[in-house]
């Protein structure tokens, strides 16, 4: 899972930084009276910044193309699901949802085919987050009143999926959810 590698990556970086700091801290206890340290600590350390810039640059150019706005951009979705979020429910439907009389239906999606969710909200901001059957967050978009966000995804595993709301929308926020199936 993506989250696991993120956590490991983070923990490794955090550990490295801590070790560096601890090492530096103990170095200052050495009785090395000859060493006067760096007189003006703000002196030019160009290479350090350069390394930082280059590694951030590499990181950015690797990750930006993986942004959701660029995924599946030139494929034709085989299924469209309309989603209207409202306090405190998600309505999913293969047909359009009428804002004045909103109703949803139960949804079954094909696996390994491109699905497009057209997500909007009928009242406040909500989040539209898809969790797989192991309750791992796999993708999400926001549901904003007045706008439609088109989220594209290919489900590779059949099973039951859950939708949770990920934007505070009132007291019912934590119970706002929905499900659909992938076959």
């Amino acid at each position, binding site marked *: 899972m993506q989250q696991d590698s993120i956590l490991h990556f983070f923990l490794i970086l955090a550990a490295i930084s801590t070790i560096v700091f601890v090492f530096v801290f103990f170095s200052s206890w050495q009785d090395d009276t000859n060493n006067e340290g760096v007189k003006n600590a703000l002196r030019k*350390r160009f290479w350090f910044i350069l390394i930082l810039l280059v590694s951030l640059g590499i990181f950015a150019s690797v990750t930006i193309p993986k942004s*959701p706005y660029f995924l599946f951009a030139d494929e034709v979705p085989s299924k469209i699901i309309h989603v209207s979020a409202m306090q405190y429910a998600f309505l999913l439907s293969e047909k359009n949802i009428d804002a004045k009389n909103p109703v949803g239906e139960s949804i079954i999606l094909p696996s390994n085919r491109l699905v497009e969710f057209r997500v909007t909200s009928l009242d406040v901001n909500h989040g539209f987050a898809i969790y797989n059957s192991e309750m791992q967050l796999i993708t999400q978009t926001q549901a904003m009143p007045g706008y439609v966000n088109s*989220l594209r995804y290919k489900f590779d595993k059949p099973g039951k999926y859950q939708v949770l709301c990920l934007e505070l929308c009132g007291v019912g926020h*934590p119970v706002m959810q929905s499900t659909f199936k992938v076959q």
Partner: protein
Amino acid sequence: MESLNLKKITSLWIITILVLFVVAIVLGIVMRLNQGEVIKLEPLAFYTNMTTHGITMIGIWFVAGMVSVNYLMERYVKTSYSINLFAFVLTVIGVVILWTCTYIGNFSSGWTFLYPLPLKDSGSAPWATPMYLVALTILGIAWLVWSVSLMAQVLKKYSFSQLLAWQHLKSNPKVETPPFILISTVTLIGVIASLIAAVIVIVLYFAEYFSNGNFVNDALLMKNLTYFFGHTIANEMLYLGVAVIYEIFAEVSGRPKWKTTWYVALAWNCSLVFILTAFFHHLYMDFVQPEGLQIIGQLASYLASIPAVGVTVFTIILAVYRVRIKWSIVNLLFFIGVIGWVIGGLGAVIDATISNNVVLHNTLWVPAHFHTYNAMGNVLFSLAFFYWFSTQHIKILVISNQTLYTMGLLLIGGIGFLIAFYMGGADSVPRRYSTYPSGLASASYLAKIGASFAMLYLGAVLIFFYNISKRCFGILYSSPY
């Protein structure tokens, strides 16, 4: 030199901040206990607690930064005592109104009050939303006046270009701009911009509120403005703390004072721009936001870390590495705070990467990283300043065993509390849930762990609170000699 009045008002601020801090931590623990199903609150009660905790924490650590910068600025220019006092009075009034809104009016839309929830929240009293906005206006005006007056004072001594240390970009500058002045300026400019963004949001809210449905705001615009304010102020308050490090770290360590060089000047000037555009990363999951701005968001978030990490952290490391230093609780707190800041920053950069944000956005990863650089970063910077301020005459800066134990408690408590958040984030646990759906197996278990460690953290804070406020009361009641 600092006048007695300034010392007294600073003491008053410090005591007030610490009292509110203790209360807000208790609210935080209550939230974690509720999420861990140890206690049972109504969702409404949880969300009023959450809103109060958020706005109180942001408020106090922002003013803590302002108070320290104001105090240290007196070394270079005269600052206005009456405006400092004015800010104090309005801040207290503002906080009282805010607490009234949350605890009596049940205002519960989160401290960022994201449009249009406060207008469509059935749980709260009808007056709660307008009054919350009024309270924020009071705070906004008080802090604006304060920031602008500090700017005006330094501008009486330095020209605008000197404030931004532009002369250091050329060789052989005639005038030296102290790093403290440079960083304070950059930060105050950001603070002013973010407060103005808040004022605009509030005006737009009121326009809709009083228009009887004739005027409806654009949700995307409101979200952009909200995070212009919220993100920027939460970041700038950290930089206020950083300015303090530049001013007194070398001094308390018994080392020569740091000086501005061309690349320090350049880095902080760049960060002025990056900090103001990084907020776009709060809208990654709003696909309506143009892709260009999303990418600017990611790049600006990355680049904002260069002056922070590349310059400040590196400087601190160099200042300590193999240098015999007089360690005291003050520079030790600074040093550990910088570690917290770096680690929180790593978490932030990871989350500010769009392709990661898809699975981290609005999960516990978010409170995880911002609590890291707040509870284990900025708070420690401010506590260090408080210690230094409260003991400056008595000079008891040696590290006692008691100090070591307290620090240990703080570290263990803080780290445990934060790890529970990070693991929750990696387990896809949503943030801002009063209780967790049963499917999220680890969520409530982690919440219990988080709550337990947070209690250790609270214990350490109480000891600090006792030590610092005892001396601050001494200053408060001292008479001129």
